[in-house]
């Protein structure tokens, strides 16, 4: 009977969906497994137990994020309406604030970004907050985000929410007149100036919000009804001019006009024909928009009033009279009334706000080096270039898409800027020399129509990894091969044969491989607490994803460089556990040498394992020769270890206790090639021999039911095992279409590396 001999030397394929077990044509299956739980794949693609997790500190909230500010490292802990800041150096709290807008079920909606010594925090419906670090005093404070005010101009963006054509009118400020009828100085600053809209728009909720009327800012003081309000003006609103013209036909309300000789520009408010309709002449009243420096009511030879529709002769000088009105008025773009941004990001020395409820396709960039300066006023810009037109100014853009406005969820720096939305991914090209990021330079090149989830994407060395809108797959945006350089970027799904592993993810993290292990890993946390880990391998087109499970519930994961911090839940408490390469135990501590960050939360009278009360832990003596597994121990109700033997000495400082991690590997049983006469594809098959080759073994593991001990016969088992290289096998019983009685398992702490799993398969 013909037998198939298959050997797996690479474990890079990860855990494959059950539905794909027979897809021998898929590259990932050649190195994948039916089950690959709590295994870590090394740079050379061998398998070993995943790292353990060591207790670090207790935190107030379930969402914890690493941040580096002013050269110091902190953890931001977001709890139920609270913010806590923990020093990573000590594991102790340095700041806390409450109440804040978020709740226990909405923590994932918090978006934050660090800009210099400020951490900007956004949340749906909340005015952005700033956690500010003072490096001199080494203290933190929390304040609401606000715009800088420069010479009475609040540096904020303005936008027209009311429908076009609605005018606002007012009686101009009192002027003093100079000689010859020329205007003198206006009276600066007015309170309670009445303004009237041509159609209802005002609401009482608009009190204390700002308007921009022809570029001048006014704060609404009172609202009488939808059309009437009073405003406070710090400077002066523009004045109306009335001119007699010999033809009123070219003038319509709202048109921009200009006195040709005097150069004064304005916006037509009213047009009245002279009596006797035989004459087309009459009076045009326009509100000065170009300048308040009106030269006076002097008659100018050859003066004409020009509009886009034509011109008329002006035989007499204009006079200041009438009611000023304009269609050019706007409201502040972001406010408690119109909405606050739900997301933020800092990059290119600009703070960006986006995901606005009032305009979901908008992105607002701050002035360079001034996160609090975001003055964008289209009308004011005519006179003040700094109102959103200079290269270093703030700007407000909307992502264009013929298929409708996409909702901007993430803005990511990766050479260019990449806009991730619910309807696609856009590239915003940036060139430092030729096309710097500045007002007017924004270009939105659609790269993909993939919708993206709210989980922030992460940037690796050669791609941006993100989770799709449906949260079933992980994709990567990466540079295209040169052969397809016409499209510089492509989007690849990097989780296709592993989609079963992703069950509503809530967070992602990345390790850079700068630590003791050189691999780059991506961590995806599902909302059920399971962690899916994928190793990025440069020469492979796929990522081998596999689950990392634990006896404790993982609620968040964050990383920086090679370090990973898990937030786990012990009872009702949230704890930070750091990834620990030395031993594969979770929630571990040296029971006789608790770190200060842990003992600081230890209740009086409780033992070192109070957070694991009434549970069973594995005890390991961390000796210089290696870990010595002392076996399982019970923890009593007060957190003290219960000796297995009366009088057992458990006082050594090297005793380390934690929860065991169950490692399971079930290799795929590859099919013979199609057309082979063995007929194995059509019959139940039998793994007649399963052989495992391993290295550096210091902990036992099982092949099927057979335990492979790290000790050889006669070794001193009271000392750590000498790292052992070897090979062992079993002959499993039974047949199946897809045999699964070929598991390799490990439940005791200690190192081992599996380098090859070979199977002899027959029918």
């Amino acid at each position, binding site marked *: 009977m013909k037998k198939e001999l298959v050997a797996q030397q690479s474990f890079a394929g990860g855990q494959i969906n059950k539905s794909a077990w027979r897809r021998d044509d898929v590259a990932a299956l050649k190195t994948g497994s039916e089950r690959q739980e709590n295994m870590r794949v090394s740079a050379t693609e061998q398998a070993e137990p995943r790292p353990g997790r060591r207790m670090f500190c207790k935190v107030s909230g379930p969402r914890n994020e690493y941040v580096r500010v002013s050269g110091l490292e902190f953890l931001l802990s977001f709890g139920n309406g609270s913010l806590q800041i923990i020093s990573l150096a000590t594991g102790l709290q340095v700041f806390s604030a409450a109440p804040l807008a978020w709740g226990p079920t909405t923590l994932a909606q918090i978006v934050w970004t660090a800009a210099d010594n400020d951490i900007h925090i956004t949340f749906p419906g909340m005015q952005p907050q700033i956690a500010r670090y003072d490096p001199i005093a080494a203290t933190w404070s929390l304040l609401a985000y606000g715009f800088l005010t420069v010479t009475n101009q609040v540096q904020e*963006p*303005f*936008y027209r929410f009311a429908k076009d054509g609605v005018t606002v009118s007012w009686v101009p400020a009192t002027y003093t007149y100079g000689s010859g009828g020329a205007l003198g100085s206006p009276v600066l600053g007015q309170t309670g100036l009445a303004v009237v809209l041509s159609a209802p728009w005002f609401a009482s909720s608009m009190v204390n919000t700002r308007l921009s009327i022809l570029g001048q800012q006014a704060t609404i003081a009172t609202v009488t009804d939808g059309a009437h309000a009073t405003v406070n003006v710090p400077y002066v609103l523009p004045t109306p001019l009335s001119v007699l013209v010999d033809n009123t036909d070219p003038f319509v309300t709202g048109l921009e006009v*200009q006195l*040709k000789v005097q*150069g004064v*520009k304005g916006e037509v408010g009213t047009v009245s024909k002279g009596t006797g309709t035989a004459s087309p002449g009459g009076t045009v009243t326009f509100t000065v928009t*170009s300048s308040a420096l009106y030269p006076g009511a002097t008659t100018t030879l050859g003066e004409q009033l020009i509009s886009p529709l034509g011109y008329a002769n002006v035989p007499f000088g204009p006079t200041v009279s009438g009611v000023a009105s304009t269609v050019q008025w706007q409201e502040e*773009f972001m406010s408690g009334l119109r909405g606050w941004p739900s997301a933020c990001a800092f990059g290119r020395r600009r703070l960006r706000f986006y995901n606005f409820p009032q305009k979901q*396709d*908008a992105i607002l960039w701050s002035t360079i080096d001034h996160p609090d300066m975001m003055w*964008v*006023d*289209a*009308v004011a*810009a*005519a*006179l003040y*270039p700094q*109102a*959103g*037109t200079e290269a270093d100014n703030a*700007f*407000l*853009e*909307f*992502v*264009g*898409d013929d298929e409708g*406005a996409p909702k901007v969820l993430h803005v990511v720096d990766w050479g260019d800027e990449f806009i991730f939305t619910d309807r696609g991914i*856009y590239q915003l090209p940036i060139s430092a020399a030729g096309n710097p990021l500045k*007002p*007017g330079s*924004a*270009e*939105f*090149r*659609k790269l993909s129509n993939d919708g993206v989830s709210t989980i922030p994407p992460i940037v690796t060395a050669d791609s941006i990894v993100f989770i799709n809108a449906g949260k079933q797959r992980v994709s990567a945006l990466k540079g295209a091969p040169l052969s397809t350089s016409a499209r510089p970027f492509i989007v690849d799904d990097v989780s296709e044969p592993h989609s079963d592993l992703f069950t509503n993810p809530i967070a992602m993290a990345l390790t850079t491989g700068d630590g003791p292990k050189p691999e780059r890993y991506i961590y995806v946390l599902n909302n059920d607490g399971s962690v899916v880990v994928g190793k990025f391998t440069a020469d492979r087109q796929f990522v081998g994803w596999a689950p990392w499970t634990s006896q404790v519930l993982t609620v968040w994961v964050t990383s920086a460089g090679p370090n990973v911090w898990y937030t786990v839940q012990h009872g009702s408490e949230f704890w930070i556990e750091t990834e620990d390469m030395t031993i594969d135990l979770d929630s571990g501590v040296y029971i006789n040498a608790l770190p200060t960050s842990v003992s600081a939360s230890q209740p009086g009278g409780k033992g070192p394992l109070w957070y694991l009360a009434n549970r069973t832990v594995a005890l390991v003596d961390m000796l210089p020769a290696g870990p010595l597994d002392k076996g399982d121990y019970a923890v009593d109700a007060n957190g003290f270890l219960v000796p297995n033997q009366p009088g057992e000495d458990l006082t050594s400082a090297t005793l380390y206790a934690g929860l065991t991690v169950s490692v399971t590997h079930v290799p795929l049983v590859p099919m013979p090639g199609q057309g082979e006469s063995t007929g194995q594809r059509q019959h139940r098959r039998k793994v007649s021999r399963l052989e495992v080759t391993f290295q550096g073994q210091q902990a036992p593991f099982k092949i099927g039911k057979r335990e492979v001990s790290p000790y050889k016969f006669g070794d001193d088992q009271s000392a750590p095992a000498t790292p052992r290289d070897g090979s062992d096998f079993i002959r499993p019983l039974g047949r199946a279409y897809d045999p699964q009685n070929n598991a390799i398992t490990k439940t005791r702490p200690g190192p081992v590396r599996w380098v090859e799993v070979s199977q002899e398969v027959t029918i």
Partner: protein
Amino acid sequence: MAGGAAGPLSLAATGLSVAGTLFQGSTQASNALTQGNMTGMSDAYRASSLEREATYGQIKAAQTDAFMRDSLAGSLANIRAVRASADASSSPTEAAILNRAQAVGDTARTQKVANINEQVQSDRDASAFYAAAGMSAIQAGQRNARNIDLASDLSAGGQLLSAGSQANWSGIGSSISGFANGLANLGVVGQQGLSWT
């Protein structure tokens, strides 16, 4: 007896001298008149040129104004086209950039047209000056001519009186008569002009 009787040759010499003086004066007056007229015409020509330049300048100002308005409209349209091609929606920043571009364009146009109009005004002023100067030159030439004529007439008269004082008064009549005949023969001065007898 006061002096001797003048001979016929002496009288003729006196007559010729007077005629020469009158002729010289007439020539100089004619020259002055011509010079005034030429200066006047030259100034008139310059005035006319400047007026023409002013008119061209006016046209240039109107053309520049129209061209720069068109050009600005084209620039603004181009900004919109570039942004639409870049899939950038109409945004507050786009409006700000357009407004700013329009303001800058308007300022440039206004300044340029104002500069041209200043030149037009300057040309007009210069034209008026040269026109006035030309008229003044012509009038001055006429005045000069009259004065020179008068001066020569007086000089000639002086010469006659001087000659008479040196001859006996009885012979003066025939002397003047001879002088007048001499002038008449020369055709320089008509009989009527000097028919003192």
